[in-house]
């Protein structure tokens, strides 16, 4: 049995498994970082937690509503909009967690970091991107927006690594994670444009995504356990 037919034959099982693994990783990261946030009230940790909250919700939304429900048009449409909206929000929060100091101080207090005047623009942009993709019947707006986000996130992570990489060992993994994220989004775009959603290519992208999430989980667990 070839890899392609193996993937096609077990597509739904693989997709549900994939969603479950990523959602579980995200929940573990949210749980760990929420504990740190409650002690420190540090905004960077708060936004970092939100990244994985939105990634987790995105994968749950896509597969619970999209794969596990019947394939009625309204379910598929809702799943697509919800998935895109949450995943774009996660990307925006990922970048914002690295640059929040330029826009607000530690003292500025918001009742919630999920929706306030500073991040309202993310919600608006995410909604516009999700709706435009539905209207266009494609994923281009999401892909391009996330490629831009990950280009900036990669540059910032690289600068952090160059500045403090000797003292802080995980910075190189953080940079590597950003590169993996960027690669996955570029490959998604290439697969859509030139490979007609090849199953093999999508399987490869899935593996890159899992590596991306595992790398963050590894960092969170390593740091929260090692210095105690």
């Amino acid at each position, binding site marked *: 049995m070839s890899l392609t037919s193996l993937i096609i034959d077990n597509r739904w099982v693989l997709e549900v498994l994939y969603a479950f693994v990523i959602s579980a990783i995200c929940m573990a990261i949210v749980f760990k970082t929420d504990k740190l946030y409650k002690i420190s009230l*540090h905004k*960077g940790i708060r936004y*970092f937690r939100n990244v994985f909250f939105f990634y987790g919700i995105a994968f749950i939304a896509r597969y619970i509503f999209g794969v596990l429900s019947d394939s009625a048009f309204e379910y598929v449409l809702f799943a697509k909009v919800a998935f895109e909206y949450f995943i774009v929000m996660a990307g925006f929060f990922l970048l914002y967690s690295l640059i929040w100091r330029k826009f607000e101080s530690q003292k500025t207090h918001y009742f919630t970091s999920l929706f306030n005047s500073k991040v309202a623009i993310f919600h608006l942009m995410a909604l516009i991107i999700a709706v435009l993709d539905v209207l266009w019947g494609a994923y281009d707006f999401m892909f391009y927006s996330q490629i831009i986000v990950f280009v900036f996130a990669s540059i910032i992570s690289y600068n*952090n690594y160059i500045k*403090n990489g000797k003292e802080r060992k*995980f910075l190189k993994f*953080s940079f590597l994670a950003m590169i993996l994220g960027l690669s996955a989004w570029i490959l998604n775009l290439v697969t859509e444009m030139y490979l007609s959603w090849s199953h093999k290519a999508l399987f490869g992208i899935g593996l890159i995504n899992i590596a991306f999430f595992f790398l963050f989980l590894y960092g969170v667990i390593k740091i929260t356990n090692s210095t*105690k």
Partner: protein
Amino acid sequence: MTTKKRERLDVIRDIISTIKENRQIKPTRLLYASNLSPQMFKEYINELIEKKFIKLDVDGKDKKSFSLTKKGSDFLQEYKVIESFIENFGL
């Protein structure tokens, strides 16, 4: 030369560390050691008491002093983790 402004978390660490080193410390001495304005000092102290990181003891002669609680002591351990987390992820 400019000095880096202490962040909220660093101020809390400094206050708790000072109390830990002294076991018990009078409010005036802690204010000087914290290097904060009286207003800011009051805000931080109230927050730390509210969170049960430190407690205010009053002796028979009505003299006040601060001491550390177990939660405060645990925070000093957690502080290292938090600092490492912020720096390792560039947050």
